[in-house]
């Protein structure tokens, strides 16, 4: 079903949310993506993806303490859920299977 499918950006962001645990919020994710993946994603896209992930129950969110550098507005921290972890893991397993095939069939590129 479409709901369970993870898009490429969705996967990436879900992964980042997990890797930043428990301090994952949109600007941090953005920076992380730049740093680790050298990939620029605009804030609004990240928000969209996060909302979509939340509606698929792959992440859950909570408001943190308000900080002065945000004009007193609270951060919304995202946390990966077991379902999220499971679907990431599934995806990784499927990929690994494919990788294995690739390595066995075309070993010369290794």
């Amino acid at each position, binding site marked *: 079903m479409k709901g369970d499918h993870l898009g490429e950006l969705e996967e990436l962001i879900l992964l980042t949310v997990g890797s930043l645990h428990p301090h994952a919020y949109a*600007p941090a994710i953005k920076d992380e993506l730049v740093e680790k993946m050298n990939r620029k994603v605009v804030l609004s896209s990240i928000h969209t993806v996060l909302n979509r992930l939340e509606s698929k129950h792959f992440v859950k969110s909570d408001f943190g303490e308000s900080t002065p550098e945000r004009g007193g*507005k609270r951060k919304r921290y995202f946390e990966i859920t077991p379902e999220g972890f499971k679907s990431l893991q599934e995806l990784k397993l499927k990929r690994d299977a494919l990788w294995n095939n690739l390595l066995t069939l075309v070993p010369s590129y290794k």
Partner: protein
Amino acid sequence: MYQPPRLASKILSRVISKELYEEISGDMEEEYNKDIQSKGRVRAQVLYLIEVFRYIQMYKGGRKYQSTNSLSMLQNYIKVAFRNLLKHKAYSIINISGLGVGLACVFIIFLFIRIETSYDKFHENGKDIYRLQHRYGFINAVAATAYERDYSEVKKSMRVHPWKKDLRITLENEDVYFEDLLMADSNFFSFFSFPLIHGDVKTSLTNKNSVAISRSFASKFFGAEDVIGEVLRIEGVMAATELPFKVSAVFEDVPYNSHLQFDMVVPFELLYDDPAINILDLWPNDWIGNYVQLEPAADPEVLEEEYLTMWQKYWDPERDTVIMDFMPLEDLYLEGYDLRSDYARHGNANQVLIFSAIAVIILLIACINFMNLATARASKRAKEVGVRKVMGAFRKQLIIQFFAESTIMTIIALVLSILILIICIPAISQMAEIDLMSGLQNIGPVLLSAFFLLVITILITGSYPALFLSSFQPVSVLSGKETKGGKGFVRRILVVFQFTISISLIIGALVVYYQMLFVKQKDLGFEPENVVVMRFGNAMALQQKWHRVKSRLESIPGVNSVMASRQVPGDNAFYWGYKFEGFTDYEDPTGDAWLGYYVGYNTLDALNVEMVMGRTFSEEISTDSTAFILNESGWKRAIQLYGEGWENPIGKTIEYYTTHSGDWAMDKKGVVIGVAKDFHHHSLQRPIDPLVIHNVNSQYLMVKVQPEKTSEVLTQVQNLWQEWNVPAAFNYEFLDEKFNASYKAEDRFNQFILIFCFLAIGIACLGLYGLSSFVAEQRVKEIGIRKVLGASEQKIVGMLSSEFLKLVGVAILIATPIAFLLMTRWLENFAFRIDLSWYYFVIGSIAAVIIAVLTVSYHSIRAATSNPVKSLRTE
């Protein structure tokens, strides 16, 4: 900590739902601060803005799929609109031409109104400047100065003496010109805002022998612009002497929209040196234009009241009433038209009002046409609307579609009207003797208002069809049910409204036309034909040479008679004091007084004015130089005022009081020798005044000629002009033309009313024609069935026509009282007017019925004679 751009944040808060706002705005603010540090403020702001737009795109989700589509939908609307235009060619032509002509008319009227309302608006202090006036546009020479001296609310005062006409001007190279001249106080150029090209605003008129001339006069006299210091000699500024004047300033030519027109200005101060004028300090003596500039907070009405105080203080303590009117400078041109006499240019506020009304009416008629035709066509478009709705069109989209259609129509109409304007403006300008192009000055506001006109037109014309057509229920439309109900009713109301206007206009046009005819054919009481009028320099010149001039002219073959006269019919009469025999007091000239009319010995005879009793002036009788003649109205007034002794006025004495000697004093005393039948001594718009006719043979030389010899006589007179060394240029006018000139403007205005009325009626007919064709088309099946069942063609024509005739009938009932009221008001402008009899209304109504029948019958007859098989076989 930096705050992101305010407006963008605000937009963001609007766009994003509340629960998401805190997070997102917080995130963005954090981003923004980071960006400022890494990329600088400007780029950070730009990035923030871009981000906001992203959110708008994202969170205005409901719109999202529409907005990608809207451009192609718009293309579709435009395409469909053009297809519709081409498919219904007749309809389009009617609509577009009606609207185009309408817009052109409205724009022309707009230009006219713009010109008329632009007068005297260019003065820097114009809002605080007032002219002092009462019955005339001028008063004594002391009022303005006294106001300035006595009341602190009066900031400045300024006077002009506008009566120096046709003065002989000699240049150093002995070139001679005859020109008009204005005498003004030395603060003239700082009081008003007529810009100087050369010379100093403050000092240009302080020297008594200085003269300021306009740019065009500078080049006319000297062939250059900077002519300061040049000398010209002017005769007649002070009595008949010639004085040298030095050019002290050159001013920009006076714009057309100034009530005061002048090309030369000399100091008013000179009047005080004139030994012949000792009336400068007299209060009851009206001849000088007085202007004051008030403090912005001052109340002119309070100052008006104060005039009596001043009058009592400085002139006559007994005095209990005076009239004083502070006329705002900016209203002077339009509001002052009913003054008895004035030196200023005047327009007519009523004209502006009537033209505005006509413009609104024409635009309204054109718009109603549009709406009527669009709704009449609704039945055809109903299926399209139904299909569009079934395919998922929202009502809003349909409204946009119909607005798009009316926009396209209006734009085409606008292009058409611009073409009409380009062709017509020069012709109309010539006809109206108004340079309409000058209304295009400062094109910006004009274009802006034209744009608004367009928008308003689109809104009016688009609103009804758009709202009405988009309201159809797709089920009822597509299942073939007729969408009747309200629409026929509204359309009928619109037709009635339109016809009410048209009938009122027809009646109005008839009345205007007959009134014009009446004025033209009215017996003037004298014969103005074939009389040549020439200005013979200053008053003395003609009196001195009179006998020589007369005998010489009479010897020319073709000359019937020779007259000399201080006034000619059409001129304003003079108000002075008259003391009638048996009455102890003279009539005050500032009251509603006697008018003096000054004609030469044989003028009344030569103009064929009939005498009721007595005789006219005769050169053989020496006492006739001081004798008087009354006109019939004057005689009646004398009986009324001074008792029955005046039943036989011949031989009774009248004393004539003026200020010519410097004080109120008897100027002359004479006997009444006759009573002349009333003749129109001035324009027919005014009633004939009670006149005391004097014998003054000066200023105008009039020659009654045989019509076939006019040109030969004129060349001979011109030759004599040089021989006599007349101190005025040789110019001549024909008396009838000169007289007609006094109401020529009115006449022209009425012609324009007629033209615009006919256009309005024409546009209304176009609409009716289009409408009837649709009604006939709509009922084509009904007609087919009726014919199959045996209805005769006449019956069907009658049936179709009667529907419209009923509406016309209702319109007649409404229009008659409206037209009656309006035309009664209009006719009140005329002292001599036609009666508003019933047949104007009957003729107007019959004309409307005939127009309706003619326009409708074409389609009814075509519908009635068509073959029913054709219309019935399709379903």
